[in-house]
């Protein structure tokens, strides 16, 4: 038993930071798993460089992983870390500005050599020049202790031993926050099963880290964070990209149709391609195409053939796909376009988040070319959004945009896994027989004869006898689908396509949260700003103010009650990680003077900043 004290905390934010090669993402992932197993609510934010192997020890090469966990509902990965683990001088330098005074910094002193310090512009060693006075600094020679702990492993080189230092760090943090390491041990066994010595070395380093915390006087106490109260259910931790992939698979399963993905790799969307490529067992076909255009072409060809065609990409890829999306609008075939947004324009910030493409999704095509848009609000919500995108695509025979982003894609949170029996049935009926007669009185098939309720046209797949027909991107005559250049017909078809999308049913009214019922200010968001907005609104309310909040899942069409909701507040503030794209749409559609609050720093909003913004607006309207 340890003689050390155990303190109780209600929430902690930890940031692991190191060189790209230091294994910080893995360390963060494992700590997250352990924390999830403890029953805490949590939210994570990985942050890694765009370069695969940026020069060692440099600022651009710093990779970090932040985790916020608590005994209550967690809405964001946290603004400011309580603990920073800095594996080298670059990690310290790159992250120090985010660390509030009084926070704990664990420093791997072994890496603080003159040379390494100089590389990032330190002339003095911050560990002993007094510049870190206002922090609780734990200098730990992490690398050398790890190597010493592995002295008995004669078959391993010094380099290989050093590589286990992230497990030492994990062991130490696991002790500090009383996390069980059994899950990590099982994980390592699976990962290194084929290399017994490396496995043993990692396990030894993990235990050495734990023991270091328990025995060294430097660490006076450890901490406990009680489990959060969460609704009953079976939980797992899940990232946005995996939730999205699983949502697509579940939707195809519920539609009883094959899922066909055509895709071209691009950060931060590639993990969806990777995940789906491994799910062939679920009748998922993935094709890595020669470019984004071919990726969506493959998906559209598969949709024509009666599959659920999906393409996954990020902003630059959407730009390439635009013409094919227009074709899908014209053909009126189901298609899901997943855009995991990142900073733009052009290559922009490949690994950083931004709500960059709302207007591109809305308008980035020639002609009147309406496409429904849905957006998930949290990592696990990507599952629901994917499901909804497939529902709209198959019911209305239309391409649908799903706008995720880098923050959701790589961030993670606990997810109450739904029961398959609770998932909606998405079965659709293919056309099976002629639906009209021609001038000679013969039975014919009219590919553009619409369902009067949904305005969707029949989905008649090749292989169906008697329904042979031709479709194309040239304007089609209403009902028959034959080429038509008739002015009135084009006007009619354009309005029909618009009305079909505008009339999409099953979009719930936007729900306003206003606990006091006295709010005169509404904060409205969409997509991944949900967590930061909810956290900021909570803080403002806790400070005794009245503020209402609402969040949009559907960006096109908007929920039917949205205009009324906007008009019922003195002021509407719209925080977005762009320069005001939703604000522009709202103003255009509802003539309401909403107030944008924007930021494009490649990072999610900080709760504190957002709370300040809300308070300023509150002052102005009071």
């Amino acid at each position, binding site marked *: 038993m340890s003689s050390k004290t155990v303190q109780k905390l209600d929430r902690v934010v930890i940031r692991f930071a190191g060189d790209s090669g230091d294994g910080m993402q893995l360390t963060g992932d494992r700590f997250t798993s352990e924390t999830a197993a403890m029953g805490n609510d949590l939210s994570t934010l990985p942050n890694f460089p765009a370069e695969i192997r940026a020069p060692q020890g440099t600022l651009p090469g710093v990779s970090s992983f932040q985790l916020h966990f608590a005994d209550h509902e967690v809405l964001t990965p946290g603004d400011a870390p309580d603990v920073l683990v800095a594996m080298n001088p670059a990690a310290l330098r790159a992250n120090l500005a985010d660390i509030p005074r009084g926070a704990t910094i664990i420093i791997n002193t072994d890496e603080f050599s003159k040379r390494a310090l100089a590389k990032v512009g330190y002339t003095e060693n911050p560990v002993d020049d007094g510049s870190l006075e206002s922090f609780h600094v734990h200098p730990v020679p992490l690398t050398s202790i790890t190597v010493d702990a592995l002295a008995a492993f004669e078959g391993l080189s010094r380099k290989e031993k050093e590589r286990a230092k992230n497990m030492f760090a994990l062991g130490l943090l696991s002790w500090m926050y009383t996390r069980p390491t059994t899950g990590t041990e099982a994980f390592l066994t699976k990962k290194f099963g084929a290399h017994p010595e490396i496995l043993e070395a990692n396990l030894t380093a993990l235990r050495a880290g734990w023991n270091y915390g328990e025995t060294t006087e430097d660490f006076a106490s450890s901490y406990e964070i009680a489990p959060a109260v969460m609704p009953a259910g079976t939980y797992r931790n899940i990232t946005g990209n995996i939730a999205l992939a699983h949502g697509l698979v579940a939707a195809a399963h519920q539609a009883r149709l094959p899922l066909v993905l055509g895709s071209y790799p691009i950060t931060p969307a590639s993990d969806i391609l990777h995940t789906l490529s491994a799910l062939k067992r679920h009748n998922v076909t993935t094709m890595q195409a020669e470019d984004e255009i071919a990726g969506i072409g*493959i998906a559209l060809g598969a949709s024509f053939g009666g599959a659920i065609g999906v393409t996954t990409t990020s902003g630059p890829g959407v730009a390439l796909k635009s013409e*094919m999306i227009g074709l899908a609008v014209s053909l009126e075939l189901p298609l899901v376009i997943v855009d995991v947004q990142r900073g733009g324009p052009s290559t922009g910030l490949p690994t950083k988040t931004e709500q960059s493409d709302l207007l591109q999704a809305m308008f980035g095509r020639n002609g009147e070319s309406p496409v429904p848009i849905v957006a998930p609000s949290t990592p696990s919500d990507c599952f629901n959004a994917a499901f909804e995108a497939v529902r709209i695509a198959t019911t209305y025979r239309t391409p649908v945009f799903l706008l995720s982003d880098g923050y959701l894609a790589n961030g993670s949170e606990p997810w109450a896994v739904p029961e398959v029996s609770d998932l909606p049935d998405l079965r659709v009926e293919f056309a099976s027989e002629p639906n009209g007669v021609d001038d000679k009185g013969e039975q014919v098939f009219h590919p553009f004869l619409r369902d009067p309720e949904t305005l969707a046209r029949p989905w008649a797949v090749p292989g169906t006898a008697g329904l042979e027909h031709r479709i194309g991107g040239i304007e089609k005559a209403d009902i028959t689908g034959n080429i038509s250049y008739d002015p009135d017909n084009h006007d009619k078809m354009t309005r029909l396509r618009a009305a079909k999308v505008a009339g999409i049913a099953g979009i719930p009214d936007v729900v306003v949260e206003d606990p006091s019922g006295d709010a005169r200010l509404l904060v409205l968001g969409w997509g991944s700003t949900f967590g930061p907005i909810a956290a900021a609104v909570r803080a403002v309310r806790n400070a005794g103010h009245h503020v209402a909040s609402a969040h949009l899942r559907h960006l096109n069409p908007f929920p039917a009650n949205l205009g009324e909701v906007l008009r019922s507040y003195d002021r509407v503030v719209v925080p977005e990680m762009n320069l005001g794209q939703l604000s522009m749409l709202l103003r255009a559609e509802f003539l309401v003077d909403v107030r944008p609050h924007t930021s494009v720093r490649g990072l999610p909003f900080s709760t504190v900043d957002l709370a300040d913004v809300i308070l300023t607006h509150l002052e102005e309207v009071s």
Partner: protein
Amino acid sequence: MTTTQPTTNGVAARPSGLAGIPLLAPDAPKQTKREFTSDQEVRWCPGCGDYAILAAVQGFLPELGLKRENITFVSGIGCSSRFPYYLDTYGMHSIHGRAPSIATGLATSRPDQNVWVVTGDGDALSIGGNHLIHALRRNVNITILLFNNEIYGLTKGQYSPTSRVGQVTKSTPFGSVDRPFNPVSLALGAEATFVARTTDTDRKHLTGILRAAAEHRGTSLVEIYQNCPIFNDGAFELIKDRTEQEARIVHLIDGEPVQVGPEDDRKTLVRMPGGRLKFVPAASAQGMDVVVHDTGAEDASQAFALSRLDSPEMTHVPMGIFRSVSRPTYDDGVRAQVEAAVSTAGGPATDDDLAELLRGRDTWTVA
């Protein structure tokens, strides 16, 4: 070589290119060209070579013995790409250059479909060049008909990637300085497994090539010389004129020496020391290294060398099948992986299988 499935019970052997596609019932009435003709008015210019190709295709399709619903034509954009509208099969007129990608998605997800792509020289080789070479390299089971009129027809007469150097067009009033592609050379370089050339006006030859292309399993590329009387009339006149063509067309016949010219002036292709190919008078070819055409040769070098006999002056124009080799197709491979994964797992995914996926490996329960 096109492989065929083994004959069973004396039923005619089935070309591998059509394997997996349901056949017409043996007692079904014989299909006619009319059945494959849609009710849409054909709108090419009078005298356009596309008419002859359409007639040949409509006349050929009944030969396949497939139901109309199991045939799909996908096209890009261009005069030639209007083709699908005139066939009473499934069809999609898509966007400029992208038809091969759409056909790839359809052919891979629907092995019961006989998928054709109709494209032009601009559509396939300019804007769609990337998709063309990747379709060929992958060897998806589709048949690509490339109508080469050496001009952009639909946009009214700009030069194309097959237009000749010096050609005067609307966008090259001083003559084109662009070097053209040879579509056959390009296809061979892109790892194509079936490459052939034919022409709009030789119905019999065209039909024979269509047959061989359809029977081939994998991507078949058929270059069809097509006259555009409006913007590039007579581009292929030298090989259409009865007397001229005899001297110029090199009929490629598998297993035979490569020859050109009329009976009294016959020339045989020989390989000179150093490897260069050269036509010599047939009589003097004896004892020389005569080039014998081998469509099934694993190594495409000789086929490529034959494709280089072309010249802008059309002194020698090889026609026929350059290459036809059997190689695993992309779509078969993709489907095999999915099928293997499903069968190894014990059949199609049930609700329980989905539930297991969603739960993942690391769950905890909150009571």
